[in-house]
Structure formats: C-alpha cells, structure tokens
C-alpha cells in the first residue's frame, strides 16, 4: 500500500511537472560575451585541437553523433538512426532530413564522406586523423596513396555506410568527435588556407566575423534542424583578456563568462563571496593529473620503487595547495569516466610503507629528475612532490620548462619523471579506451609518443583490444567491467602515480541561465553554448 501511494504521488508529481517543464522552455534571444586570454588558432574542425577552440567548433559544426547536453550519453545528431552489423564491422547511418549548411545548401552523405577523408588525408595535417584507423582504406589515404576512403560508401544522399577493418566499441564516440564533423567541400576549397578563419557548418551557431586578436562573433542559425535551439541570439568571444581583468569586468557586468576559469590568486576570495553562490558552478572533468615514471630505466624499472613513489606522495596536501580545486585520485581513470572502479583504492599515503618497499627493492640511493611545466600552480605541485619523495629518501631535482619542452622530454624518453599538470590528459571522448592506448598502451610508448612512462604490456594491450571488440549493446556492461579490470591491473603496475582529478569552476554572470550541468558540461569547455539562455530575454 505504501508503495502504491508512493507511485501515485510520483505519477501526480510527474504530471504536474510535465506542463511546467514545457512552459519553462527558455525563450530565444539575448546574447553572451565570453572572454579568453588567447585568440583562437583555428575553427577548422579537422585541425582544431585545444580546449578553447574545441567547443566553439562544436557550436558551429555537427557530427553524425553527439552527447545529450551536460552528460556523456551518446545520441544521434546529423544521423537520424544507425544500425550495426552482427560482426560489428559495418555501421549504416541514415541522415536526418532538412539539415542545411550555413550557406543554404542541404547536407548530404557525400559531405560526410568528404569530411572523414579530409581528416585522414595527410595534407590536412589533422591531429585527429589517426582516430579513424579502423575505417577500411585508412592506410592508403593516410599513406598518401589514395584520397578516398574505400570503407565509406554513400549509396544515396541519405545513407552513409562505414566498413571497418576491426570491430571497435569506441566507433560511435569517434562519430561524435570534432575531427569527423561535416564540412561543405565547396566552402573548404573556396577559402583555401583561410578556411579555418571562415568556417561554414550545420551547427546551432553561424559564424559571422573574426577580428584577429580581438573577437569572434557567432549568431543563431535560424535554419538549425533542432527546433527552438539554440537559445542565445548571439555569442561574442573576446580575446586578449587577462583572466584577472576578465573577473573585474564580470563583476562590473560587462561580460558573462570568464572562459579561462577563475585565476588561482582570486579563487579563495571569489568562492567565499556569498553573492557568487549561484554564479560559480562546480563540476567534474574527465581529467587526471599524474606523475609518470619511465619504466625502461632504473630505478623505475623496479615495480617496488614505483609503488613506493605512489605511497610517498601526500595527495591531500597537494589538493589543499591548489585550494581544493581537485579531488585526490587513486587510479588513472577519473570518477566521471565509465569504467572508473570505486573499489579500486590505489595506494594510500604511507611514507613508512614506502621506505620499507624501497629497502626491499635494494636499489640504493635514488637521484632522479622531475619534469614540470613552468606555469603556476605546476612548479608548486612539483615542489610538494619533491618534498614528499625526499621524506622517503628519493632525491628528485625539478626541471621546470616550457610546455613544448616538457612534452619533448617525455616523448623522447629522456625524462625519468614528469608531472602531467598543464599538459594532462583530458579525454577527447568519454570512454576508458581513450585513457589507455596513447598514454598507457604500447602504441604510445614510442619516440614522440605520449606514453611518457614507456609502459608497454602486451598482455594488457591484447585484453584492451578484446574489450573493444565487444560492440553489441548487450556486451556494453561486460566491456566496461573488462576495462575496469584492465585499469585495476594498470594501477597495481604503478607506471603512474595518479595525484588528483581536477574539478571545473565556471564563473558566469547573473544574466545567464540554464541547468548547472551545462556550465560544467563534460564535453564542452567552458560551457555548452547551445543550451544556455539569457535571462533578460525571458
């Protein structure tokens, strides 16, 4: 009876809520101003690959798949529907009707094919072309022997068929990644080298103007295929805005979002101010900050030494050092990522245990180097790690360098230890596979690769490949548990010392409204521009 009552109440609440939700749909209108310190580099979806241009591109262009706003849940976008063959080697997408490019031309299947070929073609120099290695014909195009992908067929204007050379459970995520966004060939060719400055897509916002070093203006795409979307009439990105100055401007009501986030020096003051309670939104991000240890060289070829390093680092203290803008990490995967194992506690802080392990390892005195990017707060974090290591008898000298130099030192295998802050792995798509191959698998453990630990475990690679061959819907859970198991083993092998998972703090003006999840969208940084709205237009 009690149960019945509950469901009756629930049903009533739902009924009451439904029309309310309809009435609450935000009205279109108004605008937002977002500041960034740096000008954008490009709006070419096949080329742009930094956190800043990443989500602006997402608002101008669309892919076959996308994520539900504010979540990591896949849904069809330019594709209306799709089917997967039983062997997982053929994906057939049916395109949506009525999708037009901003130049007015309807989007067709040949545009989809062209866009993927453009991503893979070496002449494009796309940093993401390698993601499409499972599409048949990839090697020929990537190797410069062909310009068309034999694995993409377009039997009619509305159908795109992908033939794969191996089943890959991340394929649908890759259909949602920027590098596969659909671009109109005629505009790309017309603009030539200036295409990245004159983007034409199918997305929620239409590109208007780019004044180099100053601003980019977007306006609402009135022909966008989703009705009543987006809500804002216009977005202006202003560049060259020091975040410290941008915070002052936001307080004065001149701008709406500090795109670079809250500067460390102002963090305590702003978050303590009760006026900012609803204006600063906190969320998780698909990011882990870690220390890599090069397993191919002494002393870190000894697993006991690596485990000792894991136990020596006081993660809570480091988190306090950065004003609690992160949560201590215990495994490579961040908590918001599917496959994160809440039961995997990693290595607890235990300096005595670390000393014991080092004694057991019997490697004698350890003198090593810790490479770190020279932008605050990373050198401070490195110093904390240095002190923790010294407390257990490991002497680590800090090498504080520019980002590109740290990346080079890691990629060449020269750096025994690297603190990943400032260059850390933020997932390109929300799947555990994206946290494995390039940074913990054999594929990345090469000259110029991003697996700076050079950890290469063939058995784990095989298990990863096997997990990713589980493509059917009813295998999803089995696949994720296999990834969990893989990352449990990776954690034990201690090629990394995971330190923390950064949180995101988005500071926005009172003029802007929307679900808080939109302001810390895991896919769109800093915010999901398509679904936030202007309160003054309501």
């Amino acid at each position, binding site marked *: 009876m009690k149960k019945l009552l509950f469901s009756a109440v629930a049903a009533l609440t739902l009924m009451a809520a439904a029309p309310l939700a309809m009435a609450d749909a935000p009205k279109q209108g108004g605008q937002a101003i977002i500041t960034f310190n740096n000008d954008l580099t490009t709006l070419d979806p096949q080329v742009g690959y930094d956190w800043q241009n990443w989500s602006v591109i997402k608002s101008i262009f669309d892919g076959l798949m996308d994520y539900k706003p504010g979540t990591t849940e896949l849904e069809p976008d330019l594709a209306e529907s799709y089917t997967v063959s039983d062997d997982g080697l053929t994906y057939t997408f049916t395109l949506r009707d009525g999708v037009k490019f901003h130049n007015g031309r309807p989007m067709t299947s040949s545009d989809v094919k062209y866009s993927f070929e453009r991503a893979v073609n070496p002449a494009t120099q796309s940093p993401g072309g390698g993601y499409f290695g499972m599409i048949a014909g990839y090697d020929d195009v990537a190797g410069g022997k062909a310009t068309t992908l034999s694995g993409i067929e377009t039997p009619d204007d509305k159908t795109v068929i992908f033939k794969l050379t191996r089943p890959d459970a991340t394929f649908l995520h890759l259909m949602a990644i920027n590098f596969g966004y659909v671009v109109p060939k005629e505009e790309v060719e017309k603009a030539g080298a200036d295409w990245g400055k004159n983007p034409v897509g199918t997305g929620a916002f239409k590109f208007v103007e780019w004044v180099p070093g100053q601003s980019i203006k977007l306006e609402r795409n009135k022909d966008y295929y989703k009705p009543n979307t987006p809500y804002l009439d216009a977005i202006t990105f202003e560049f060259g805005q020091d975040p410290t100055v941008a915070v002052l401007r936001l307080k004065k009501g001149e701008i709406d979002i500090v795109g670079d986030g809250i500067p460390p020096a102002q963090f305590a003051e702003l978050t303590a101010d009760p006026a900012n309670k609803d204006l600063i939104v906190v969320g998780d991000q698909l990011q882990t900050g870690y220390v890599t240890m090069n397993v191919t060289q002494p002393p870190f070829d000894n697993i006991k030494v690596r485990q000792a390093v894991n136990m020596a680092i006081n993660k809570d203290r480091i988190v306090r050092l950065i004003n609690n803008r992160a949560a201590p990490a215990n495994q490579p995967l961040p908590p918001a990522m599917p496959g994160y194992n809440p039961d995997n506690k990693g290595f607890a802080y235990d300096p005595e245990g670390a000393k014991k392990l080092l004694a057991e390892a019997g490697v004698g005195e350890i003198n090593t180097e810790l490479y770190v990017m020279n932008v605050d707060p990373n050198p401070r974090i490195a110093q904390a790690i240095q002190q923790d290591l010294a407390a257990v008898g490991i002497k680590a000298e800090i090498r504080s360098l*520019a980002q590109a130099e740290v990346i080079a030192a890691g990629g060449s295998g020269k750096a025994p230890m690297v603190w990943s802050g400032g260059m850390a792995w933020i997932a390109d798509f929300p799947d555990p596979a994206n946290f494995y191959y390039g940074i913990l698998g054999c594929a990345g453990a090469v000259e110029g690769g991003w697996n700076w630990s050079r950890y290469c475990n063939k058995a784990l690679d095989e298990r990863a490949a096997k997990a990713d061959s589980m493509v059917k819907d009813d295998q999803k859970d089995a696949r994720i548990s296999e990834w969990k198991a893989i990352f449990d083993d990776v954690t034990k092998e201690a090629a990394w010392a995971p330190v923390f998972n950064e949180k995101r703090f988005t500071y926005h003006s009172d003029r802007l409204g929307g679900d808080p999840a939109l302001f810390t969208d895991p896919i769109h940084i800093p915010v999901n521009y398509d679904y936030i709205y202007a309160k003054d237009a309501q």
Partner: protein
Amino acid sequence: MLRYLAKRLAASVLILLGVSIVTFGLTFMIPADPVTMIAGRNSTPQMREQIRVQLGLDKPIPEQYARYLGRLVTGDLGISYARKSEVAPLVASRLPPTLLLMLGAIIAELMIGLPAGIYAATRRGRFGDKAAMTLSFLSVSTPQFVLGLTLLYLFAYLWNWFPLGGYGKISNLILPALTLGLAGGGWYSRMMRSSMIEVLRNDYIRTARAKGMSEWRVVMKHGFRNAILPIVAMIGLDVGIFMSGVVVVENVFGWPGIGQLMWQAIQSLDIPVIMGVTIVAACFIVLGNLIADLVSPLIDPRIRLR
C-alpha cells in the same frame, strides 16, 4: 648624406641577415619538437614522419635555412603551424595596434620625462628635484605587469575613468600607453635633468641671463633646444625597448598587437609565427636606429654624418 645613408642601409641589411640566422638557429636549439605539437596525442610515428617531410624538417639545416631565406626576401614568412594560414598577413594585421601603442608610449614618456627633467634641473638639489628623481627611480623599477594591473584596478575598475582593457577607442589607449611609457618617462627625466644642468652651465646661457632674459625664456629657448638633443637620439632606440615591453603590456590590456601574437605563438611552439614576429620587430628596431641617426644632424647642425 647619401653615401652615409647607403652605408647605413647596407649595415642594416647585414644586421637583419644576422637576426634571421640567429632566430633560425635558435629554433633548432629549443629542446622541443614542433611535429609532436602539430601531430597531436594519438598520432603514429608514421604520421609524425609524414608531417616532418611536409614541413621540410627532414632536410639538412643549411638547406632549410636557404629555403627560408629565399622565401623571406619575397616577403613570405611561411605557414603557421597552429593556424595553417600564412604568417605575413597575420603579422601585418597585428602591426598597426602595436605601432599605435608605441606612438602613445613615446608621447607619454616625453610628456612625463621632459617637464619632470626640466623642473628637477631648475631646482637642482632642492626638495622638488629630489622628489622628482625619487619618482623617476620608482617608475623605472616597477615591473610593467604590476603597473598595468594596478592602473587597471584603480582607474578602470574602482573609478571607472577608463575601460578595462580592449582596443578601438582613444580611451583604450591611455592606460597601456602610460604603462609602456612610464619607465621611459622616468629614464628621460633623469637624462633631461643632467643634460639641462650641463647646458645651463654654458657661457651663452650666462650671456642670455646677463641680457636680462626671463629665466623661463632662458631655459626654454636656449636651454631646451640644446638639452633635448641626446633624447631625440634615444627615441629611435626606444622602439627596441618597446618591442620587448609590448609582449607584457599587450597581454595585460588585451591589446591585439604583435606582442600578444608572439606570446601565444611561444606557448604553442608556432615557430613560423615566432620567427616572423622576430624578423618584423628587428626591421622596426633597425629602422628606429636609422631614423635616430638621421634626425640628430637636422636638429643640431654641429653633428656631421660620415
């Protein structure tokens, strides 16, 4: 005059050639690999190799330099690694804001430095002199990012006199020009002071005074014109000092000039842009020096060009 000009121009070309060799050489000494930065995190060694070949980075360094120089003389600064667009128009579009900022800074430093220097010189050893020189010492030693942020906080945020950064209106120019020019103003006030003190010791000044000329006219008519000479020569050199200052000032104030472009290019290791800005900046420094050399004899006929 013409022979002198030809000689100086030839020397300038040599200097620029030297700059091109040094910047080119430096990019190979940086322990970082642009190909890794372009290719991204999930690239394969084959992809990286392909990009290396496309950019011509697999060629011997002298050959790369020869190609670079060949393009440079035609005004082609190459293609940006991060933007995939041409560097020359990019730098050209960022030049006017920087030149405007430097002009503003020169006006600011002269408007601060000359009156302060003259004032101090005429009150030598007294309180006004000491106060002016203390202020000049402070202005020379304040880091520009501290000064810039302080000015922004006080005059733009608290008192609303000026906008909080930005570009386009004359009101946007005043604070960054002041930030860039204040140190120079302090410097000039010291130079002007010592130059003026020296000039005022001359016999013709005593003669002027003896004629019963007012002190104001003595200082401004006879003193100023002679005392300002060393400063005019310095203005040309300022271009070089400002070229490094704009990197900081433009970033604090959101000024869309080449300093900002340079800073961003350094962060992303966009070597063609870094080299492009360096060469263009070097051209302006050389030009500034040349102008300083040519202007001095126009003001002071005693200086002869050789």
